[in-house]
């Protein structure tokens, strides 16, 4: 598991990419669903 997280020494680059992407999409979904439920 820790080897997986280590990403062969590229952890910051790989997880930095996936983390920010996931955060961006999550924020967009939350904003859109918020608007949807408010009406």
């Amino acid at each position, binding site marked *: 598991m820790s080897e*997986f997280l280590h*990403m*062969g*020494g*590229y952890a*910051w*680059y*790989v997880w*930095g*990419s*996936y983390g*920010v*992407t996931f955060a*961006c*999409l999550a924020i*967009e*979904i939350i904003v*859109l*669903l918020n*608007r*949807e439920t408010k*009406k």
Partner: protein
Amino acid sequence: MRWFWYASPQTFFPLTGRIALGCGIAAALLAAAGLYIGFFVAPTDAQQGEAYRIIFIHVPAAWMSMFIYLVMAFWAALGLALNTRLSGMMASALAPTGALFTFIALWTGALWGRPTWGTYWVWGDARLMSELILLFLYFGFMALHAAIEDPRRADRAAAVLALVGVVNIPIIYYSVQWWNTLHQGASVSLTRAPTMAATMLTGMLVMALAFWMYSIAATMLRVRGIIRERG
């Protein structure tokens, strides 16, 4: 087929919810499959080690950033030509998601550039600059639309901007051939065999499909909000 039936926001509205739900579920399933292939099936790259795994979001996000712009410009042109109300709403609904994918392409590109080229960013590099201009085109579209009070006039003004900006799309796409750039050429093309392992390619294409589905779902949700606001 009555093409103009769904050109009315009111008749289109009930459809948007169903499309958003279906595409949202498809996006989640495809993303799970794509990430599984990307991290557990695709092998370590011989030259780049694990750093190359950024490809599974970088390339699909870059494709989406360009494709959403083309779809946005298509709706903009349709709105100018036919004066249909839904067209402008669709263009406005696409812009923020397009900007988001452009940002993701730039961000993941920077984090991939550092271990492979030794730098996060190069000012003046053709591929990087044209993609940055794409981000500014999305921002410009949204800012211009927001600055004009009458929504129909805002639609038309922003549509003209969107259409002028279309020139940038082939510039991004061919920048790696037209200029010297750090960026590598296309790994996948319609005219020749891909230059990557089959599992890597599969993971990338599944993630691209997931981003497609996500973009449709997000756009449908956003157009619902716009139809409610503008009626």
